[in-house]
Protein backbone atom coordinates (compact mmCIF):
# COMPACT_ATOMS: atom_id res chain seq x y z
CA UNK A 1 0.00 0.00 0.00
CA UNK A 2 1.35 3.34 -1.06
CA UNK A 3 0.67 5.66 1.87
CA UNK A 4 2.18 8.75 0.29
CA UNK A 5 0.07 11.84 -0.17
CA UNK A 6 -1.30 12.09 -3.67
CA UNK A 7 -2.52 14.75 -6.03
CA UNK A 8 -5.17 14.05 -8.63
CA UNK A 9 -5.47 16.72 -11.26
CA UNK A 10 -7.90 17.09 -14.12
CA UNK A 11 -6.70 19.13 -17.08
CA UNK A 12 -9.61 20.60 -19.02
CA UNK A 13 -8.30 23.82 -20.51
CA UNK A 14 -5.86 23.77 -23.41
CA UNK A 15 -4.47 27.28 -23.11
CA UNK A 16 -0.78 27.82 -22.44
CA UNK A 17 -1.35 29.82 -19.24
CA UNK A 18 -3.51 27.17 -17.58
CA UNK A 19 -1.29 24.31 -18.73
CA UNK A 20 1.73 26.21 -17.41
CA UNK A 21 0.02 26.78 -14.06
CA UNK A 22 -0.82 23.07 -13.91
CA UNK A 23 2.75 22.12 -14.84
CA UNK A 24 4.13 24.14 -11.93
CA UNK A 25 1.73 22.51 -9.46
CA UNK A 26 2.55 19.06 -10.79
CA UNK A 27 6.33 19.40 -10.78
CA UNK A 28 6.16 20.80 -7.26
CA UNK A 29 4.00 17.92 -6.08
CA UNK A 30 6.36 15.43 -7.72
CA UNK A 31 9.35 17.12 -6.08
CA UNK A 32 7.63 16.87 -2.71
CA UNK A 33 7.21 13.13 -3.24
CA UNK A 34 3.49 13.16 -3.93
CA UNK A 35 2.09 10.60 -6.30
CA UNK A 36 0.41 12.51 -9.13
CA UNK A 37 -2.43 11.23 -11.31
CA UNK A 38 -3.41 13.44 -14.22
CA UNK A 39 -6.57 13.01 -16.28
CA UNK A 40 -6.47 14.97 -19.52
CA UNK A 41 -9.75 15.91 -21.15
CA UNK A 42 -11.34 18.20 -23.68
CA UNK A 43 -9.18 21.12 -24.84
CA UNK A 44 -6.22 20.01 -22.76
CA UNK A 45 -6.25 16.69 -24.60
CA UNK A 46 -6.07 18.56 -27.89
CA UNK A 47 -2.90 20.25 -26.58
CA UNK A 48 -1.30 16.84 -25.88
CA UNK A 49 -1.44 15.80 -29.53
CA UNK A 50 1.90 14.50 -30.77
CA UNK A 51 1.91 17.00 -33.61
CA UNK A 52 2.47 20.56 -32.45
CA UNK A 53 2.72 20.16 -28.68
CA UNK A 54 4.90 23.30 -28.65
CA UNK A 55 2.59 25.34 -30.83
CA UNK A 56 1.25 28.52 -29.15
CA UNK A 57 -2.21 27.94 -27.68
CA UNK A 58 -3.04 31.37 -26.33
CA UNK A 59 -4.19 32.29 -22.86
CA UNK A 60 -7.49 31.98 -21.02
CA UNK A 61 -10.15 34.63 -21.50
CA UNK A 62 -9.26 36.61 -18.36
CA UNK A 63 -5.72 37.18 -19.65
CA UNK A 64 -6.83 39.16 -22.68
CA UNK A 65 -4.39 40.21 -25.38
CA UNK A 66 -2.32 42.23 -22.92
CA UNK A 67 -1.98 39.30 -20.54
CA UNK A 68 -0.95 36.99 -23.35
CA UNK A 69 1.75 39.48 -24.38
CA UNK A 70 3.05 39.65 -20.79
CA UNK A 71 3.29 35.86 -20.69
CA UNK A 72 5.17 35.67 -23.98
CA UNK A 73 7.57 38.45 -22.92
CA UNK A 74 8.26 36.86 -19.54
CA UNK A 75 8.90 33.46 -21.13
CA UNK A 76 11.56 35.09 -23.29
CA UNK A 77 13.09 37.16 -20.50
CA UNK A 78 13.12 34.41 -17.88
CA UNK A 79 13.82 31.56 -20.27
CA UNK A 80 10.91 29.65 -18.73
CA UNK A 81 10.57 26.09 -19.93
CA UNK A 82 7.53 25.18 -22.03
CA UNK A 83 4.76 23.49 -20.02
CA UNK A 84 5.27 20.22 -21.89
CA UNK A 85 8.93 20.15 -20.85
CA UNK A 86 7.94 20.83 -17.22
CA UNK A 87 5.57 17.84 -17.40
CA UNK A 88 8.50 15.73 -18.62
CA UNK A 89 10.67 16.98 -15.74
CA UNK A 90 7.87 16.08 -13.31
CA UNK A 91 7.72 12.56 -14.73
CA UNK A 92 11.49 12.34 -14.46
CA UNK A 93 11.74 13.35 -10.78
CA UNK A 94 8.59 11.73 -9.41
CA UNK A 95 5.76 9.29 -9.91
CA UNK A 96 3.50 11.09 -12.36
CA UNK A 97 0.92 9.26 -14.46
CA UNK A 98 -0.79 11.03 -17.35
CA UNK A 99 -3.98 9.48 -18.69
CA UNK A 100 -6.22 10.60 -21.52
CA UNK A 101 -9.91 10.67 -20.65
CA UNK A 102 -11.61 7.90 -22.58
CA UNK A 103 -14.71 9.98 -23.30
CA UNK A 104 -12.66 12.87 -24.69
CA UNK A 105 -10.72 10.40 -26.87
CA UNK A 106 -14.07 9.35 -28.36
CA UNK A 107 -15.33 12.91 -28.78
CA UNK A 108 -12.24 13.99 -30.67
CA UNK A 109 -11.78 10.62 -32.44
CA UNK A 110 -8.25 10.21 -31.12
CA UNK A 111 -6.12 7.12 -30.57
CA UNK A 112 -2.95 6.76 -28.50
CA UNK A 113 -0.89 7.14 -31.69
CA UNK A 114 -2.18 10.70 -31.98
CA UNK A 115 -0.93 11.69 -28.51
CA UNK A 116 2.46 12.69 -27.18
CA UNK A 117 4.39 9.71 -25.75
CA UNK A 118 4.34 11.28 -22.28
CA UNK A 119 0.68 10.21 -22.07
CA UNK A 120 0.74 6.83 -20.33
CA UNK A 121 -2.60 5.51 -21.52
CA UNK A 122 -6.34 5.96 -21.72
CA UNK A 123 -8.42 5.90 -18.56
CA UNK A 124 -12.12 5.81 -17.81
CA UNK A 125 -13.52 8.15 -15.20
CA UNK A 126 -14.16 5.38 -12.65
CA UNK A 127 -10.50 4.35 -12.76
CA UNK A 128 -9.54 7.97 -12.16
CA UNK A 129 -11.76 8.16 -9.08
CA UNK A 130 -10.55 4.80 -7.85
CA UNK A 131 -7.03 6.23 -7.69
CA UNK A 132 -8.13 9.68 -6.45
CA UNK A 133 -7.87 9.14 -2.71
CA UNK A 134 -6.48 12.61 -1.96
CA UNK A 135 -7.13 16.08 -3.24
CA UNK A 136 -8.48 16.68 -6.72
CA UNK A 137 -7.67 19.83 -8.66
CA UNK A 138 -9.50 20.87 -11.82
CA UNK A 139 -7.77 23.24 -14.22
Amino acid sequence: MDDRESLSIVLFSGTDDRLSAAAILIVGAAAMNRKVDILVQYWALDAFRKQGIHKPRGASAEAGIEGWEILQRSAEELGTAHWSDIFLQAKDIGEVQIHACSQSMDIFKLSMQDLDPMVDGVQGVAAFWAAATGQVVFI
Partner: protein
Amino acid sequence: MSSIQVDILVDARGMACPGPLLGLIGAVREGTVGEVIEVTSTDEGSKTDIPAWVAKARHDLVEVIVEDSYTRFIIRKAR
Protein backbone atom coordinates in the same frame (compact mmCIF):
# COMPACT_ATOMS: atom_id res chain seq x y z
CA MET B 1 31.60 33.88 4.65
CA SER B 2 31.19 30.14 4.51
CA SER B 3 34.27 27.98 4.91
CA ILE B 4 32.55 24.84 3.58
CA GLN B 5 34.04 23.22 0.48
CA VAL B 6 31.43 23.22 -2.29
CA ASP B 7 31.56 20.25 -4.68
CA ILE B 8 28.84 21.24 -7.15
CA LEU B 9 27.74 24.79 -7.98
CA VAL B 10 24.32 25.36 -9.54
CA ASP B 11 24.06 28.95 -10.71
CA ALA B 12 20.30 29.40 -11.11
CA ARG B 13 20.32 33.19 -10.96
CA GLY B 14 17.80 34.66 -13.39
CA MET B 15 15.74 31.47 -13.51
CA ALA B 16 12.05 31.64 -12.62
CA CYS B 17 10.41 29.39 -10.04
CA PRO B 18 10.71 26.36 -9.96
CA GLY B 19 13.91 26.38 -12.07
CA PRO B 20 16.37 26.71 -9.15
CA LEU B 21 14.71 23.88 -7.23
CA LEU B 22 14.78 21.63 -10.30
CA GLY B 23 18.46 22.50 -10.76
CA LEU B 24 19.12 21.46 -7.17
CA ILE B 25 17.17 18.20 -7.56
CA GLY B 26 19.20 17.34 -10.66
CA ALA B 27 22.49 18.08 -8.88
CA VAL B 28 21.49 16.00 -5.85
CA ARG B 29 20.58 13.06 -8.08
CA GLU B 30 23.93 13.22 -9.88
CA GLY B 31 26.03 13.81 -6.77
CA THR B 32 27.28 11.28 -4.27
CA VAL B 33 26.39 11.08 -0.59
CA GLY B 34 28.29 13.63 1.46
CA GLU B 35 28.86 16.04 -1.40
CA VAL B 36 28.03 19.69 -0.89
CA ILE B 37 25.93 21.55 -3.45
CA GLU B 38 25.55 25.30 -3.65
CA VAL B 39 22.56 26.81 -5.45
CA THR B 40 22.51 30.53 -6.19
CA SER B 41 19.07 31.95 -6.91
CA THR B 42 17.41 35.30 -7.50
CA ASP B 43 13.95 33.71 -7.28
CA GLU B 44 12.09 34.67 -4.09
CA GLY B 45 10.27 31.33 -4.16
CA SER B 46 13.55 29.50 -3.60
CA LYS B 47 13.65 30.86 -0.05
CA THR B 48 10.66 28.71 0.84
CA ASP B 49 10.94 25.95 -1.79
CA ILE B 50 14.51 24.85 -1.28
CA PRO B 51 14.32 24.44 2.54
CA ALA B 52 10.95 22.63 2.16
CA TRP B 53 12.31 20.21 -0.44
CA VAL B 54 15.58 19.59 1.42
CA ALA B 55 13.61 18.70 4.58
CA LYS B 56 11.18 16.46 2.67
CA ALA B 57 13.95 14.68 0.77
CA ARG B 58 15.93 14.38 4.04
CA HIS B 59 19.13 16.09 2.99
CA ASP B 60 20.95 18.72 5.08
CA LEU B 61 20.46 22.43 4.60
CA VAL B 62 23.88 23.55 5.80
CA GLU B 63 23.53 27.27 5.32
CA VAL B 64 21.47 29.99 3.63
CA ILE B 65 23.46 33.12 2.82
CA VAL B 66 21.58 36.22 1.68
CA GLU B 67 23.70 38.36 -0.65
CA ASP B 68 22.66 41.77 -1.98
CA SER B 69 20.86 40.57 -5.10
CA TYR B 70 20.62 36.81 -4.68
CA THR B 71 20.59 33.99 -2.14
CA ARG B 72 23.04 31.12 -1.74
CA PHE B 73 21.79 27.77 -0.48
CA ILE B 74 24.35 25.25 0.76
CA ILE B 75 23.05 21.67 0.82
CA ARG B 76 24.74 18.41 1.75
CA LYS B 77 23.47 15.25 0.04
CA ALA B 78 22.66 13.04 3.01
CA ARG B 79 21.51 9.79 1.43
